[in-house]
């Protein structure tokens, strides 16, 4: 069999079976997700290390911030549900519903990002900077902005990726599998937030 035949897919029957019976791009997304999980894990462990070793760690969050975090959780988990509905609609061939639900997911993601920025600007207004704050351990700002900033970057890039995929899906360039693969990433972003809230917000509530 010539190399040209293989590149054109004529040798599909002779080629090795897909690993784990999933498309390679889905496997790549899973591998990315586990490496990203380790990145977030390292960030949260580092945060715990610094917090544990600092005798004057600040507890700046009042009930308004905690309710805001809970509302952000509601938005993010709801966006996970809407992206699931989008993928299901795409698998059923209901293109318009798939596109609609993906756009709802993107809007929810952007709403989450907006609330996140509101929280950030509130803290900056109270005098929190990367290496100083009015309350205590100077590394509070750096660790808070690093963890929530990395998560925020994931949300924004996820929204952009979903937008690109759904526009491609609308034009016929991408299919339901592509939408499903990016939904995995979106769920992962949701999953990470479940650990960020208790460690970063709920452990730092004003007494």
């Amino acid at each position, binding site marked *: 069999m010539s190399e040209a035949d293989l590149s054109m897919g004529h040798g599909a029957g002779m080629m090795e079976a897909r690993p*784990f*019976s*999933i*498309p390679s791009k*889905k*496997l790549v997304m*899973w591998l990315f997700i*586990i490496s990203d*999980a*380790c990145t977030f*894990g*390292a960030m949260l*462990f*580092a945060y*715990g*290390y610094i917090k*544990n*070793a600092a*005798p004057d760690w600040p507890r700046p969050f009042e009930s308004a911030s*905690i309710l805001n*975090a*809970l509302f952000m*959780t*509601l938005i993010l*988990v*709801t966006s*996970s*549900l809407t992206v*699931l*509905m989008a*993928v*299901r609609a795409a*698998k059923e061939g209901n293109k318009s519903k798939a596109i609609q639900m993906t756009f709802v997911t993107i809007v929810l993601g952007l709403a989450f990002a907006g609330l996140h920025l509101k929280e950030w600007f509130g803290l900056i207004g109270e005098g929190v900077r990367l290496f100083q704050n009015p309350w205590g351990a100077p590394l509070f700002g750096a660790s808070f902005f690093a963890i929530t900033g990395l998560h925020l970057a994931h949300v924004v890039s996820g929204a952009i990726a979903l937008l690109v995929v759904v526009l491609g899906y609308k034009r016929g360039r991408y299919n339901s*599998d592509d939408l*499903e693969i990016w939904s*995995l990433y979106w*769920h*992962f972003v*949701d*999953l990470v937030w*479940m*650990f960020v*809230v*208790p*460690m970063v917000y*709920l*452990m730092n*509530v004003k007494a």
Partner: protein
Amino acid sequence: MDSNQGSLKSDLVVYVVILALACVQVFLLKGHLFAMLSVAVVQAILAVFFFMHLGSEKPTLRLALIPGTLFVLVMMNMIWADSFRLMTMKPFAK
């Protein structure tokens, strides 16, 4: 991949349970780190197995992804001994 999608009803149940657990974290367990993290682990398992459908993938995929990731995350716990040691060193030593 179509058979992996589950039903909307099961997705809604998982959605409600995850949100309920988030409320439990905020209103009942606030400040109790291990209890809150245990709840977060349950939320994560629900998300991975039902939203991300890892539960309906081949067992070999689960075997390839989960143990290695857990191993790395568990090994990161080695930092705690040093973190507690810092409390007894200068400039915080009493």
